[in-house]
């Protein structure tokens, strides 16, 4: 191949090659109050947050696309971090990886479209939202709210009294090791709950299954409801509770020796109401066609 042709080929190749997509590596930090608020927002990639003892926020960001922009604004009480994608962003697949260290007492609000969100050691209030990313966190004593459209979620409690709130459309959300109060709803996803020292347990689904293990306190209030999903409630013995359960066309099963009866001789629906042990806690479970099962083992 003579030089002229090879140069022409080279020119064509260079013209056709996309601009080298230089990844951006950015480091930011700020001194903040121990109980400051952190807001972080990303589109694709990851948000990884760990807590430390320093009154500082430290961010390491890797933006795979040179067209994305990182915004970082900090005052002593508030830090806002945002990955901004260009208007014509059509899912080109470039991730932004945000690795964050925050004071352990800070409260955090993290949101993403598809970026996975992972937190560890954050003691302050957490509000975590993702459309389709996976969300994983630890719960201590401050409220945790987790919300997704299709992303899955895991909340690992550490025995603290965090009030946990979960909302998802189709995600599978598991919460365990938490105490006190839980409120969750899904459409077709599923809820897996392990709640100690339960005072409030609310769980609702349209078609998703709900599987709850709970240790009922004497003043516990449990309300569970589904249209067509399955509800299973396993309670730590001894069980002292009033049960009120009704289903239009689903089965109501239990291991306390009670039998559901027809709501009316002529109409549809069955119900089961009884008191187990000395009562105290109140459990109400309803379904349209989903089966209900309660037991103490």
């Amino acid at each position, binding site marked *: 191949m003579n030089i002229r042709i090879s140069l022409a080929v080279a020119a064509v190749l260079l013209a056709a090659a996309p601009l080298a997509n230089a990844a951006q590596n950015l480091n930011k930090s700020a001194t903040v109050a121990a109980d400051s608020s952190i807001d972080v*927002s*990303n*589109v694709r990639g990851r948000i990884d947050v760990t807590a430390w003892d320093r009154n500082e926020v430290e961010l390491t960001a890797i933006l795979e696309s040179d067209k994305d922009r990182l915004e970082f604004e900090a005052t002593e009480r508030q830090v806002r971090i*945002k*990955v*901004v*994608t*260009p*208007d014509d962003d059509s*899912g080109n697949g470039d991730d932004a990886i945000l690795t964050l260290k925050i004071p352990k007492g800070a409260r955090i609000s993290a*949101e*993403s*479209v*598809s970026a996975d969100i992972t937190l560890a050691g954050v003691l302050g209030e957490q509000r975590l*939202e*993702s*459309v*389709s990313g996976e969300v994983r966190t630890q719960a201590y004593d401050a409220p945790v709210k987790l*919300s997704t*459209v*299709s992303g899955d979620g895991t909340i690992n409690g550490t025995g603290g009294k965090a009030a946990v709130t979960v*909302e998802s*459309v*189709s995600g599978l959300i598991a919460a365990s090791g938490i105490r006190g109060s839980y409120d969750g*709803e899904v*459409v*077709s996803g599923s809820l897996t709950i392990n709640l100690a020292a339960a005072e409030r347990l609310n769980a*609702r689904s*349209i*078609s998703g299954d709900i599987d709850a293990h709970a240790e009922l306190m004497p003043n516990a209030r449990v309300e569970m*409801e589904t*249209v*067509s999903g399955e509800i299973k409630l396993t309670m730590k013995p001894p069980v002292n509770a009033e049960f*009120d359960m*009704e*289903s*239009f*066309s689903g089965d109501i099963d239990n291991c306390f020796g009670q039998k559901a009866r027809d*709501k009316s001789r002529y*109409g*549809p*629906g069955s*119900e089961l109401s009884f008191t187990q042990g000395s009562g105290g806690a109140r459990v*109400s479970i*309803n379904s*349209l*066609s989903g089966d209900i099962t309660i037991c103490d083992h």
Partner: protein
Amino acid sequence: MTTIPFGRGPQKDPLLAKASNLPQEIAPPRDLWPQIVARLVAQSRATPRRFTWPMALAAGFLVAAVSALLTFGLMRDPGTVPTPNLIAGSAATQAAPMPVSYGPNSALGAVQLKARDELLAQFRQRLDELAPETREAVVKNLAIIQRAADEIDAALAQDPASGLLNGLLLSTYQEELQIYSKVVTSGGALTRRT
């Protein structure tokens, strides 16, 4: 600023005069109305819910049902849905079952249905901006909600005063709104493009 003699009335204090000139109105960074509406609907759920439908609430629902039936008439026929700001959207969006149709036995008040109108226009717009697989998941779940609404409606035909069924109906409607509200507000990373 020079030192201000102590003892002057507050109206003469230049500091307070300046403070009173600060803008009283500050616009929030995003529209909070969709989430407020979703919470208003959640509040309207009847509580506590035992198995006898409180008579007063039943009467209220019957009254609302009359006007609701008119709305249902519109809702059941997509061609006449009055959504002036409707953006045509993708084929997937157009095929999606929204808004969910609640049948003739399902008494949802005009208040609650009006709340849905507010969210729908914004929702359609945002839905098109989602990744295809996420959009599919949302559409699929709206279909699940439609199925639930149909099953509840069929059950209501047999037992219209059932507290259980009416409670499930409200919950189902609330889940529908939640989907819209989630899509509208949880794409924050997208909506705040500059």
